[in-house]
């Protein structure tokens, strides 16, 4: 028997060792991992199926739900569900839970640029041609629009003109917009950039390559991004898929992954030793994260995409 799991493929070795291999051993199943970025994988799954479990950030799992790609999961089917934080249990209704929470923030190379303490610092003149930020079609892309709006004190949904005007001022500082976290790691480690707007899952890799990199403590705070688990609407392996999800949200797995690759745990029973972590590791930290209203965002998405292209597609 095989179970096809679609995920980013960002840390294949650790995922295999800590999640997939134990699960395979326990259930006598072979896990096939399909990798790629969020939209690619979601679209392929929608078009031709063949995937049992899919890992997506919340922005994209919402799209999947809207497109009827996923099956619903009853709370009773997941034995570990109740251990998750409130927000992570049923982030999108009757669909899958969030197994990790990430932060959207800024990293910079302290050896090369002055410290960054605010989102507005991205607009600094000395950062011309130094920054990479996520493309619009990524989980965190649209958040940059929100940042740009709040910089000039407007509501991006109410006054997109002003928001995008602000964003346009950022344009000269941007070297590249990226689509996957690992792209950013490349850009950072090859020195293409010295500042990156990013999700925190990529921080360990960047630190490993560039020891002088620093995660910026931002006055305005960081955005929350939930990584969800969902099953395909038509999966023939529904039982196994549910078991996989349950396994993945278990305290043991979340703890191991937190320590190994820096996935911010959503399981409240995970007890991490005291220390500094490259993710939101305390309830306080998690609660202080800014949440995005996806229903509002999805409504303006097309309009923003066009405006975004007008700004960056020079």
């Amino acid at each position, binding site marked *: 028997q*095989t179970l*096809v799991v*679609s995920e*980013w*493929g*960002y840390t*294949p070795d650790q995922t295999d060792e800590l999640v997939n291999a134990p699960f395979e051993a326990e259930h006598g199943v072979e896990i*096939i*991992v*399909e*990798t*790629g*970025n969020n939209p690619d994988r979601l679209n*392929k*799954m929608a*078009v*031709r*199926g*063949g*995937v049992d479990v899919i890992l997506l950030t919340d922005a994209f799992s919402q799209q999947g739900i809207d497109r009827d790609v996923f099956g619903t999961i009853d709370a009773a089917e997941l034995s570990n569900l109740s251990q998750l934080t409130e927000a992570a249990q049923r982030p999108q209704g009757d669909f899958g839970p969030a197994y990790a929470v990430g932060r959207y923030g800024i990293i910079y190379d302290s050896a090369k640029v002055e410290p960054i303490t605010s989102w507005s610092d991205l607009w600094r003149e000395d950062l011309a041609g130094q920054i990479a930020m996520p493309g619009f079609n990524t989980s965190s892309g649209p958040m940059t629009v929100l940042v740009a709006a709040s910089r000039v004190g407007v509501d991006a949904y109410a006054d997109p003109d002003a928001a995008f005007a602000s964003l346009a001022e950022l344009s000269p500082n941007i070297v590249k917009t990226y*689509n*996957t*976290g*690992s*792209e950013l*790691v*490349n850009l950072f*480690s*090859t020195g293409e950039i010295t500042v990156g707007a990013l999700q925190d899952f990529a921080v360990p890799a960047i630190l*490993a*390559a560039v020891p002088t990199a620093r995660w910026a403590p931002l006055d305005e705070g960081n955005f929350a991004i939930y990584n969800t688990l969902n099953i395909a609407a038509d999966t023939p392996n529904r039982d196994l898929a549910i078991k996989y999800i349950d396994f993945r949200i278990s305290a043991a797995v979340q703890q191991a992954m937190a320590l190994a690759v820096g996935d911010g745990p959503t399981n409240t029973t995970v007890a991490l030793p005291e220390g500094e972590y490259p993710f939101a590791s305390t309830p306080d930290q998690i609660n202080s994260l800014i949440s995005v209203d996806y229903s509002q965002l999805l409504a303006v998405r097309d309009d923003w995409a066009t405006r975004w292209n007008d700004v960056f597609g020079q």
Partner: protein
Amino acid sequence: MMRNLHPLHAVAAGLVILFLTLPLVIILGAAVSDTTYLTFPPQGLSLRWFELALQKQNFVRSFFTSLQVSFAATLLALLIGIPTAYALVRWRGALPAWMKSFFFLPVLVPEIVLGFAMLKTVVVDMSIPVMPALIIGHLVIILPYAVRVVGASLEGFDFSIEDAAVTLGASRLKVVLTVILPNIAPGILAAFTLGFITSINDVSVSLFLTGPGISTLPIELFTYVEQHFDPSVAAVSVMMMALTMAVMVLLERSLGLSKAMG
């Protein structure tokens, strides 16, 4: 040897050839670099990226998928391409004039458009599974090579040897088997090589046709390069080049490349 080649011209040509050669040398250098990121000249020397690449399940699995797809597609392309090439060359005037251009259509349709179009029709509407869909997609892009290369080897073919064989007592079928096929064998091999290499390197069509758990090596590499900029991609590239080189050397040994390409 260098009949009246102006020195400036020679230098310019040399520079261009350097421009064409250097990148591949650099990939080789990058592959043996000991750093975790891609760099040239290599810093330190290590084969660990080769080792790593060979350990990556996705690379290994997709490599075998690629082999299967390319082999099947190339064989099919030859199977239907050889009779076509023969018909086009042998009955030059008998087939409508558009026929020849028709077989070059795939060259003119941008591959990425073809990929998308096939995704819509072949995958979604016809519900053809991933593997056959990939083979069909590759078949379509290889077919022009099969027709053209086999056609070229038939182009110089003296068809009177068919008549000679017939008058010596060979039936038409025997003529095909004992006269035509042996004589265009180099062309067939060249077409096979060219088609296979084209197929195994394809990105744009496969991009739309791969599916869950079934992916070709270039697509895996492509996904990987966009995410990880480490020398294991260079290592895979070097291994792919070595494979290509091996195929070419084999061809050269068995037939003489110039002959096969001509």
